């Protein structure tokens, strides 16, 4: 392990740290974030089954509360599609097919934006409101918070894509011009020598989390529309 303790200037990545550290951090963060997300939605799953079993005042699921299954299926399918595209994009990225991965990520991002749009349209047209009983409450709450998580993840995807696009002409391992350092504009030197090397760890973690979230989307679809 002595090489770990060697002269830090050997590493031209983030702040003289070993290059795999960012990947390990993001990887563990992705898993931890997924477990936290699971517990968040567990509350809604619990609410669903709990209120359904109680059916207080007979208002669990009044007759007119019928969720539009077409919309729901579309939302679910687009989420899954986007997750698959990001997975494939990751494979491209690993294989060094840079323009292919950017294309897949862009389409995946578009699909994700489609999810957001469709979800909002569904709320506006679905014929029942949040006040229409237990099911309606869970439906509204679950889809709304799910959308928040989706938007956050899309922001992450967009970040990675934007970095890949911005440095598309820099060869792998190449250095950008000084002044491209981000964060603190007042900083004299650039602290990131190889920006493209930072895309991969982010993409690995994102891909895991996005797949997980798509899985949650399928679960939501099964519970809210099919069960």
């Amino acid at each position: 392990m002595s090489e770990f303790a060697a002269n830090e200037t050997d590493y031209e990545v983030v702040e003289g740290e070993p290059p795999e550290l960012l990947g390990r951090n993001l990887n563990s963060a992705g898993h931890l974030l997924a477990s936290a997300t699971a517990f968040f939605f567990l509350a809604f799953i619990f609410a669903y089954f709990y209120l359904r079993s109680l059916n207080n005042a007979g208002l669990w699921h009044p007759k007119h509360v019928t969720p539009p299954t077409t919309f729901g299926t579309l939302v679910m399918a687009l989420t899954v599609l986007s997750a698959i595209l990001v997975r494939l994009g990751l494979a491209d990225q690993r294989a060094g097919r840079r323009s292919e991965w950017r294309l897949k990520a862009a389409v995946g991002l578009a699909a994700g934006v489609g999810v957001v749009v469709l979800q909002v349209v569904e709320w506006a047209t679905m014929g029942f409101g949040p006040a229409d009983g237990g099911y309606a409450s869970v439906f509204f709450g679950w889809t709304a918070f799910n959308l928040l998580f989706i938007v956050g993840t899309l922001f992450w995807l967009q970040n990675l894509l934007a970095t890949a696009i911005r440095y598309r002409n820099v060869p792998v391992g190449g250095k950008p011009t000084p002044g491209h350092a981000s964060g603190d504009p007042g900083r004299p030197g650039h602290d990131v020598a190889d920006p493209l090397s930072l895309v991969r760890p982010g993409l690995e973690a994102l891909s895991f989390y996005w797949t997980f979230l798509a899985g949650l989307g399928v679960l939501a679809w099964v519970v809210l529309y099919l069960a």
Partner: protein
Amino acid sequence: MSATAVEIRPPVWRRLIGFNAITGVIFGIIGYYLGWFLGHHITGKSIAFFADIDQNDLSVLLGYFFGVSGFLIGLGFGVYPWARLRGYPPSLREKETQGTSRYFGLCTDHKVVGIQYLIGIGLFFFIGGLNAMLIRVELLRPASQVFPAGQYLTLVGMHGTMMMGMMTSGILGPFANYFVPLMIGARRMAFPRIESLTFWLLMAAGAVLTTTIFFGGFPTGWTGYEPLNSQANTGMDSYLVFFALVGVSMCLLGLNMLATIITMRAPGLTWSRLPIFCWAVVSTSILNLLAAPVLIAVLGMAILDRTAQTTFFNPQGGGSPYLYQNLFWVFGHPEVYILALPGMGIVLELLPVFARKPLWGYRLAVSGLLGVTLLSWLVWQHHLFVSGINSDLRPFYMLSTELISIPTGFTFLCGLMTLWRGQIRFTVPLLFCLAWFFNFLIGGLSGVFLSDVPSDVTTHGSFFSMAHFHYTIMGGLVFAFFAAIYYWSPKMFGYTLNERLGKIHFWVMFISFNSTFAPLFAVGFLGQPRRTVTYAHNLQFLNDWVSVSAFVLGLSMLVFLYNFVYSLLFARIRAPQNPWSSLSLEWQLPSPVPVHNFDRIPVITGDPYDYGNPSPGAIPATAPAGGSS
């Protein structure tokens, strides 16, 4: 190694309006009014869901949302996402310079964040404590006298919420942020910007809760039970936003700590060599990470109930108040272990240093901490023994609750056996640790009464349970907090706290604490419920005794404050690098610790408890001190 130590100091006015606390506050206020205006605009349009509310919750909530966002942007948290949005790669470090100004903004140095936490949480602890004093003033007489009923409930609610919310990070915030990287031989936390965010979110949360007084306060206490929650006026929104922000902060803090300890341990620092305090941080962080999302979810439902007219908790509309109680305590019980576990960690970490012996039964202690972590998920309905929920499951919850005393007992055994045949030195931190044992013992034993259903029928919701959790939280967490601050001050500030004043502080605090809360067990058994502004006349003597003791307890905090300010700002006696002769890694660094902690990452060859070993091979011998300052 401070290569770029070229200090560029812009003029004062430029420094004042840069991204810092001042801009944060200004942006926060602007954001609040923006959201407030937006909320009125939306309801003015009479969208059906929002229409039938005579007070505009939406406006207040949007105000808070935009206010907090503005505050964070003003602090500089918008810079990074904005850069990423445009495709610039991540940079790790921000404002890692010297000087006081870094304490008033986004700083990614974990040591700065630790001290920010210490001062920031101390501030809100002071406000919460002041509320407690006012509560005890009111309870000097059996009938309502100083405060009207509504104000009294707000005081109770603010005290409880402030303490339960802020003190979740009471030890993790200051001490884990500061010392976990040092103990594991790292230069930083895994996500330094998130680390800073957790702190500033907590400050925003505290400010939000304090502003509840402008909206009429809230009547629910810290538990925020529905449907009272939905009934309450807009002051309730402050509670909801406060706790949601605290939840986000807790969750991110846990995530960051776990990621750091998982990935950034120095070479050789295997899991079985990890300092026990870090194990306590791991177990607490697991609870933080997983319990806080449930809290955020349940508060989200409450917010939807109050604004969008969903009926999660409204039985007339197909919901159930039980749903709130279940979900709240699914969070709420791990939450109390979030408050207890760091204290155990501190005590077990400090005892070896002052008994000059290795930690006895390291593996047992670790399994104790992890056992508590696991079991804390299985006990939540013991808060609901008389509520009518799942009455046939009560034997299970009784068993699981009492089972927790087994892993808790492990930590007791390990701590006590560490003292056995040691060379005990009575320093101020050790005194606080010993008091922790006594207090937590009483807290734990009284917990057995509450976990036993027949006994719980009387004690539930009475001052008995209130005394119980003050023994575990104040007697546990706060005593451990003081042990930690007396122990680590020399490293954090480079100055020693006055020992004589420390001992005075300890004895006054220990005696007045017990004198305050021990009689409350009797008060509870004699039939006084919590959170009532009135009580039976025959309980006045006990209540007066408690109030006077509580005032002395409050004074003991002032003794500490005096000691803290006097020692650090006026006496300024330089502390030696390792005043306690501890073998732990953080003490091998110079005081104050250089910005990048270690010039060379140390290689760890043993655990930090190698006391009494005639041939010490481990840490101090091989750990090179960083030392460019």
